[in-house]
């Protein structure tokens, strides 16, 4: 498996995505353009989802190029530290964007304060992604004249940001130093899983025709519980990955799980942006959903169970990938 290429394929997405997203978001305030704002929020959510495989493939790329002569370990470490700082701002922006998209459907809408918070998060994320891209580029294209192993010259902004960047190995050790911390993260991951599958399962089953006496709208209002579960699981999942990056990156079941999660992102996009949700939103007791809605609901259920099953198989498929 060539993670080097996968990483190169994905690594411009967070940077370009966030710069475009911030641009659209700022532009949406001029003239108070709600559609433009919605587009920016969707971009933040989608790009933060894609940032996860970008981050994860970096570990595989690291293992691949570490064998090559002339690659400076210090530059790789600096890039990983930059990514580990930026990741949280990207994911937090994505989460806040999802909450704002959810709230924008309600009459009260999204408050100015919330939008300002998203703008701040997104701007920081864009800067940190830019820095991550720059430090990553330096690995293959070191500054001219820099001797291998020489101290890294930072600009003013870079040296300020660097103060906040974790040491990659330090962060990894922090996650695995105490087994009770690890056990706590795993318990939280299972609780999050239950919240997601319970709420998403109930909504999908109702759309598919189970318990038809239930109106969809109040059932759908339980979705924040599933979003909380997703938040818990992205957080604990990424922390677990940082704790044992090489272990997960070399595991086929882990990549299968990640692929299913990306497809779920597509599934959610088809459901909410493809006009399907608008048709099932006011499904009354006894009313049947359209076939397209049923197909999207069934594939969502199938994909979530794929996520659970492949997640549980990660231990079995330890060391199943060579790179």
């Amino acid at each position: 498996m060539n993670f080097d290429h996968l990483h190169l394929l994905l690594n411009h997405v967070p940077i370009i995505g966030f710069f475009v997203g911030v641009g659209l978001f700022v532009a949406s305030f001029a003239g108070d353009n709600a559609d433009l704002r919605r587009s920016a929020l969707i971009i933040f959510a989608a790009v933060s989802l894609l940032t996860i495989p970008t981050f994860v493939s970096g570990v595989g790329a690291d293992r691949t190029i570490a064998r090559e002569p002339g690659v400076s370990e210090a530059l790789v470490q600096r890039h990983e530290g930059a990514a580990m700082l930026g990741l949280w701002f990207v994911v937090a922006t994505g989460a806040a964007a999802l909450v704002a998209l959810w709230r924008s459907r309600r009459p009260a809408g999204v408050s100015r304060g919330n939008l300002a918070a998203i703008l701040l998060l997104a701007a920081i994320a864009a800067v940190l992604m830019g820095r991550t891209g720059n430090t990553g580029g330096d690995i293959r294209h070191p500054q001219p004249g820099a001797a291998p192993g020489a101290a890294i010259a930072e600009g003013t902004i870079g040296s300020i940001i660097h103060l906040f960047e974790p040491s990659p190995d330090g962060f990894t050790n922090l996650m695995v130093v105490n087994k009770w911390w690890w056990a706590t993260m795993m318990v939280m991951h299972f609780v999050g899983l239950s919240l997601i599958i319970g709420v998403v399962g109930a909504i999908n089953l109702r759309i598919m025709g189970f318990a038809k006496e239930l109106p969809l709208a109040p059932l759908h209002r339980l979705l924040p519980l599933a979003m909380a579960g997703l938040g818990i699981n992205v957080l604990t999942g990424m922390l677990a990955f940082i704790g044992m990056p090489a272990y997960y990156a070399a595991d086929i079941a882990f990549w299968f799980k990640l692929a299913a999660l990306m497809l779920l992102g597509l599934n959610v996009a088809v459901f909410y942006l493809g006009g399907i949700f608008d048709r099932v939103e006011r499904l009354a007791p006894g009313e049947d959903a359209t076939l397209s809605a049923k197909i999207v609901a069934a594939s969502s259920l199938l994909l979530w169970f794929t996520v659970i099953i492949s997640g549980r198989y990660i231990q079995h498929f330890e060391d199943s990938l060579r790179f």
Partner: protein
Amino acid sequence: MDAPAFLNTVERSGLSTWIRESESAFAYYFVLVIHNIGLALLVGACGVLGARLLGFVPDLPVAPLRRFFRFVWAGFWLNVVSGVFLLIAYPTKALTNPIFYVKLVLIGFGVWLLRRIERELSSDAASRDVVPAATRSLTLWMLGLWLGVLTAGRALAYTATYILYGKGT
């Protein structure tokens, strides 16, 4: 104190050895997958029922939600069966760990509460969609117990004194 000898007998049986040592993806980790799906069904469905009974979405009719008990019990029985297989694979590991017995007791109370809540929802009063305060507190206990079962189950992976008969951690 030494672990009782019958644990060794179970561990040496063909089934126990196969579940534990087979390289097949359909051995130990398959049983764990089933156990995980059972957990997702049981705790997930309980979470949705609990959210309604605690008053999160008051305009969701209660009576049709009873149908979700089907998933609760499907998850429960999946986990009884898969749990027995896990116990056959690692009898010493489970039975020498006090947390395993805590888990069983919590499951007992959890099932008892689930059955009580299910009965209350089957009575005519449930069709009124107003959840009595007593049912609400039962629901809180029920959710807390299953959270405890989940936590105890996870903790079994980190608290074992023996992994196999005569083989400490």
